[in-house]
């Protein structure tokens, strides 16, 4: 995110060296202000075309969601309209029907409990292990780290059959514990925290803590944890999203009477006659919690995705 550094010089260089390019660069008819960012990198401000294309993409991307709300606030006939734009007044009535059809509040509560527990667990264990891998020396460290990286690519989701057998053996099927336990740790989490902590904590700091007589766990709490906080927030956000959106495993191990939000939502669609205004009302209701999360933590989400790209 180092785009904002002003670099007026290159613009001048381009002007001088290749005058024949000037028309092309100047096509947008603006004096170069040398804000220095931009792929063109040549100080030109993005023109109408750039904003127009982006706006088209954004509107196209947002419309299916808006359309869902319009249909959800209308009647089943609204869906037949060619390009409905204005919401009707039926959303609350349709929402009430959703509440009748599926145990929405129970599902919401289950999803919150499951996602929060998984998030806390993944972040805690990943921070501990990531710190050890980043900053402590121990025999077998590199070998174990390679193991972690290798397992990141392993689709553990394919182990659902034995997992189901174990849960049935334990009598956990139908309980939300059965959804929580298989995702208590992730290899990605450990890798992510390790990559972050290896750069942000200076070795001298840990050395200093030890010289001052702090034992390992004290050092962890007073040196590593404060430094790890931003990465923990991002990892937590992604883990929460992952747990919240999971569908296959909850579908297998939970019953329709004790569902997560995702499995409950999918129940709305079964049956031969589908009233889409009610189904879509359910989809909109289920999206609202994540929309709130997005508004509150969207910036962290973006920086997390972009940081992951550079590191990964």
């Amino acid at each position, binding site marked *: 995110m180092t785009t904002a550094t002003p670099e007026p010089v*290159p613009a001048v*260089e381009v002007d001088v060296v*290749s005058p024949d390019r000037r028309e*092309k660069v100047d096509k947008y008819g603006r004096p170069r202000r040398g804000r*220095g*960012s931009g*792929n*063109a*990198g*040549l100080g030109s401000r*993005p023109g109408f075309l750039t904003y127009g*294309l982006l706006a088209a*993409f*954004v509107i196209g991307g947002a419309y*299916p*969601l808006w*359309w869902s709300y319009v249909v959800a606030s209308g009647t089943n006939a609204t*869906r037949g309209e*060619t*390009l409905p734009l204005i919401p009707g007044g039926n959303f609350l009535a349709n929402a009430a029907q959703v509440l009748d059809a599926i145990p929405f509040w129970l599902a919401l509560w289950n999803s919150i409990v499951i996602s929060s527990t998984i998030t806390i667990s993944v972040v805690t*264990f*990943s921070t*501990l*292990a990531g*710190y*050890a891998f980043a900053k402590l020396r*121990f025999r077998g460290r590199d070998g174990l780290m390679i193991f972690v990286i290798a*397992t990141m690519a*392993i*689709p*553990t*989701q394919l*182990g*659902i*059959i*034995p*997992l*189901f*057998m174990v849960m049935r053996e334990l009598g956990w099927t139908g309980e939300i514990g059965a959804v929580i336990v*298989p995702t*208590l*740790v992730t*290899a990605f989490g450990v890798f992510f925290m390790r990559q972050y902590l290896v750069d942000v904590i200076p070795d001298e700091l840990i050395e200093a803590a030890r010289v001052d007589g702090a034992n390992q766990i004290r050092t*962890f709490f007073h040196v590593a944890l404060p430094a790890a906080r931003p990465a923990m927030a991002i990892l937590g956000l992604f883990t929460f*999203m992952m747990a919240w*959106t999971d*569908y296959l495993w909850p579908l297998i191990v939970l019953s329709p009477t004790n569902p997560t939000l995702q499995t409950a*939502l*999918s129940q709305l*669609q*079964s049956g*031969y006659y589908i009233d889409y205004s009610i189904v*879509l009302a*359910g*989809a909109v209701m289920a999206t609202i919690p*994540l*929309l709130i999360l997005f508004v509150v933590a969207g910036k962290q*989400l973006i920086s997390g*995705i972009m940081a992951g*790209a550079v590191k990964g």
Partner: protein
Amino acid sequence: MTSTLTPPTGTGSDGDDSRPPRASRLTWRQRISIFDVKASPYAYVAPFFLLFGLVGLFPLAYTFWVSLFDWDLLKGQGDFVGMENFWAILNDRFFWNSIRNTISIFLLSAIPQLAMALLLAYLLDQGLRAKTFWRMSILLPYVVTPVAVAIIFSSVFNEADGLVNNLLNLIGIPDQQWKHDTFLSHIAIASMVNWRWTGYNTLILLAAMQAVPRDLYESAAIDGAGAARRFFSVTIPSIRPTLIFVVITATIGGLQIFTEPRLFDVSNAGGIGGADRQFQTTVLFMWELAFFRRDFGEASAVAWLLFLLIVAFGLVNFLLSRRVATGDARGGRRAARRAARKGADA
């Protein structure tokens, strides 16, 4: 053997001889401290490895064990049948059908998505005003869960009066069979994946583009490379490692696609991927085998075959990316220079 073993033991005992006197001089406190330094790292990584082994690796390995037996969902473990489940699956046309569908949907989602994400990342890399607004807007579909996406798009692609057919009618194209036609249903399912993930991948590519040294563009521009030329000869080679990273993650996820085909047309086919299995993916096939046909043995064989396929895809990608990544920075510069030279020649 014994003669070679003796000397080390000797030196070892020497060491041991010299250690106790020193150790005895250590106070309790110091000894605890040494133990603390030596053992703590293991204590920190142990929870991860224990839990991951228990709930991640063990089930995967045990899947192979199950695949060697007749194993019914209700009746449990039956006779040992060796590789028979694997042969049965490899001769099952529904298995190959599911592999074809999975790869077709994967290609239909990965390629347009990557192209679109590249274009969007390029646009976002232009020093926009209100860049946070644009980035958040691009990412918006990502917060809609796959189940909600499947429900929304199942309705959008409704054959009788869905949004897509309505819009097609508007420009004079008759209704299309989005749910019954094999290829069209693949396009519809791929569009769900594209809709949700394009913004996400755009941001990853944008981050990589921002890391490209600006002087590369400048020198290319000085030598007369136009915007398109700079994009293909400077940007693309410079971000190639990230591109491949995106492709790998898309592959691992794409080959396991389940939610979207499962919920695309529930009313007509009970959610097993279409009346003629025209969009049944491999995970969906595995799920049907295990929980509808109750055949855990064959379902486990499918899981392992898919696992091998994913590992193979991943390995190829990894080798590819390593080769490209090593020559990366130089490659970028070389490409820039080449572009510059071409420009100068012209």
